[in-house]
């Protein structure tokens, strides 16, 4: 214990190690908090969920923080959901059977670009007579635009951009041919061309219900060109889900694989050295065979033919690394340790082979393998990303690698959706650097020979 504290003090002398430890700490905290906030099954359901889960999100929207760096503020998503009690709701009984429901959604629009689309999702309950909905749009300069009307079914959506009549009306108003309603509604008619009119807009959704127990709910979404702190992908999914959940998955995969391979390799080296003779030479030969078996191609083959489960891959990585090349290093160290007097003492009092190997030999070099484990973590974190990049990522789990893979196959770099690749890549880099920096410093602390140089 005292030795450990001393090493801890030595470690603090390396600024890179301290930075690395802070990064590792952040990643670990995110890994612990994420599953608590968003449980595993929910995250998977959310990530696998289709249009129903994500319909209120824009497609391929950049993260909100992009606006901090650009002069023009991109439109963010504005959404009102009457089921959640958002906005104002006024009901009025017009006659015995007829009621009027009015949803008043008032919002600020301080952005410099137009939203890519405007949609109203409505849900109505009725038995025979369908309700009727009229949309009224009030601009900051006091104009009133009749933005459309429709008869909602049980579940329907109204897309402003597909309403020809609204488009013609806006053409007259703005004087621009073929104006898209989602642009025309926000346009400043005083200015030349398309210019956003800043200020407070009001949308009134007026529903007429012709049955006493008929009901109407309406959700209005003005889609953004930026959305959330991480943006969205081509399926309108919020990338932050995958960024957050990728952290515990990457940490788990990296750490388990690093610990698994190192501990098994070391134990096998210890067994070989202790028994010597044919056991030792068999292990040596197997190591040589193993060096020639290409790990990644085999992983890919298994991923293609059997299963792509992350946990199966983890098991395979460990199995294929059992006879890894590092056995040679451990063997050299164990050969020295084997000759130490305390091993003779153990043998003299009649300790069993297994006891000597696992209670005396292995613990002796445990401090040496700690840097080894830490430096190995990034290798496996990147291995998972590499598999995902080849399209062999786990089919259900949202990981960093799968984000990069999605982005790559959707041509994110060609289309300029840089955030889509840069965010997971930055996290991968952060994880890689953090562990590598700590591992480097640990190596120097535990190997004094390196420290002198």
């Amino acid at each position: 214990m005292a030795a450990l504290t001393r090493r801890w003090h030595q470690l603090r002398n390396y600024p890179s190690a301290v930075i690395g430890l802070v990064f590792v700490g952040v990643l670990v905290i995110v890994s612990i908090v994420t599953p608590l906030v968003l449980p595993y099954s929910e995250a998977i359901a959310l990530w696998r969920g289709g249009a129903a889960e994500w319909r209120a999100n824009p497609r391929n929207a950049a993260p909100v923080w992009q606006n901090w760096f650009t002069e023009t503020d991109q439109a963010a998503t504005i959404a009102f959901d009457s089921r959640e009690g958002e906005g104002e709701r006024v009901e009025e009984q017009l006659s015995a059977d007829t009621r009027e429901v009015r949803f008043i959604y008032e919002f600020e629009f301080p952005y410099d670009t137009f939203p890519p689309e405007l949609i109203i999702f409505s849900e109505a309950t009725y038995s025979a007579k369908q309700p009727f909905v009229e949309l009224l749009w009030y601009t900051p300069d006091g104009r009133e635009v009749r933005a459309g009307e429709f008869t909602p079914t049980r579940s329907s959506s109204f897309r402003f951009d597909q309403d020809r009549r609204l488009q013609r009306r806006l053409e007259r108003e703005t004087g621009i041919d073929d104006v898209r309603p989602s642009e025309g509604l926000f346009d400043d008619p005083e200015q030349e061309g398309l210019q956003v009119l800043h200020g407070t807009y009001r949308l009134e959704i007026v529903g007429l219900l012709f049955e006493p127990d008929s009901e109407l709910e309406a959700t209005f979404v003005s889609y953004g060109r930026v959305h959330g702190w991480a943006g969205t992908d081509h399926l309108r999914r919020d990338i932050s889900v995958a960024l957050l959940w990728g952290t515990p998955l990457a940490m788990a995969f990296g750490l388990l694989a690093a610990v698994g391979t190192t501990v098994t390799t070391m134990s096998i080296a210890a067994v070989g050295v202790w028994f010597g003779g044919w056991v030792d030479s068999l292990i040596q030969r197997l190591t040589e065979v193993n060096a020639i078996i290409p790990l990644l191609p085999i992983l890919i083959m298994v991923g293609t033919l059997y299963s792509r489960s992350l946990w199966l891959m983890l098991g395979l990585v460990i199995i294929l690394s059992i006879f890894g090349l590092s056995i040679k290093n451990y063997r050299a160290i164990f050969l020295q340790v084997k000759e130490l007097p305390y091993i003779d003492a153990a043998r003299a009092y009649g300790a069993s082979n297994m006891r000597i190997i696992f209670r005396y030999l292995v613990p002796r070099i445990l401090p040496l393998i700690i840097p080894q484990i830490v430096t190995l973590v990034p290798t496996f974190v990147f291995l998972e990303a590499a598999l995902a990049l080849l399209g062999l990522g786990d089919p259900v789990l949202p990981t960093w690698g799968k984000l990069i893979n999605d982005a790559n196959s959707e041509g994110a770099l060609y289309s300029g959706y840089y955030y889509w690749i840069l965010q997971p890549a930055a996290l991968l880099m952060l994880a890689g650097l953090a562990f590598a920096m700590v591992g480097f410093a640990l190596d120097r602390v535990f190997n004094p020979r390196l420290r002198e140089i």
Partner: protein
Amino acid sequence: MATELSAGELNLEEEVDVETIEASAREARLKNARRLLRYTLLKLIALVFTVAIGVYITIIVANMGGEVDKIRLATIRENVALAAVADPAFQQMSTEERRALLDRRVELEIEQYGLDRPFIQRSFSYLRDALLLDLGYAEGLVSDSGSRQVRNIILERLPPTLLLFGTAQLLLFFGALAFGLSLSRRYGSFVDKVVLALAPTSAAPGWFYGLFLILIFAALLQVLPFGGMVSAPPPESRLEYALSLGEHMILPVAAWLMAAIFLTTYNWRTFFLIYSSEDYVEMARAKGLPDRMIERRYILRPTLPNIITSFSLLVITLWSGAIIHETVFNWPGIGRLYYQAIGLFDTPVIVANVVLYAYLLAITVFLLDFLYALVDPRVRVGEGSRN
């Protein structure tokens, strides 16, 4: 080397007959060469066995312990049925006759492919085929020359891979060697500290830096191509072709180097530093030998075996990275072929690719072992006898 040296010393004394000395020196050199040859041969035989075992394991995995044969059986049945339906004579037969004919044909096919033998027996014939890369026909892929033979498809893709990674590895080796030596000379300088600080960046693999390089140089600056090997259509003249090839190689090679050079340089510089604090180096300095000579003879020479070991480990681990590297850069080598084969579930090509990778690894290991034997006098002179 030891023998030559003693011969030289004896020559100075001018007492012994010069010819006998020359003869003994020649004999010693011959003996060395023979030892080297024997060492190489032993290594080669061991490697052949190793490759065979590795490939055998691959076959067991790829066949899912015989599962693939079921798929093959189904394919045979379907093909036979399709061929029969196209035959007008077949349509006039009765149902029983048809079934009997089909069964007979299927049995013939099964016998032809040897599917009636037990899996263990068959796995050895697969092993022979795999080692010869004689894996029949691809299921979906076609080579650029139009062949469906797996061997043709694979061998066609080998040269681009060797070109790209050969260049990258050679640059890495000599670059890190020169860089490491110069750093060990200026130990503690600013550049030295920068390399030390950058060494952890090698935690990320080459393809990862590749993504960034593509983003910067291809997408943003638009000065270098996104990927591929030559521009389309391929230039007519030789020179233009080579130039276009070089242009396409810049990014993948740079990404490969970025991922490995700092850590490698740092490690090798550490080797050099360890060896330059040896007593005999101090002695040489005291004698007043020029720095260049000290570096070459007293520092570089004894460090080389260590460096070659470290380099071979690096190359072995980097080979696997080639698949993703080529995929990211759209380089038409075996790595990308592997990726395409995965997409098409083309099992023969996948297996052949794994085998080829095993061969590449084995050849790499062999070459580096040979190199090691050349630079390490302990191997050349033979263990135990140090005369």
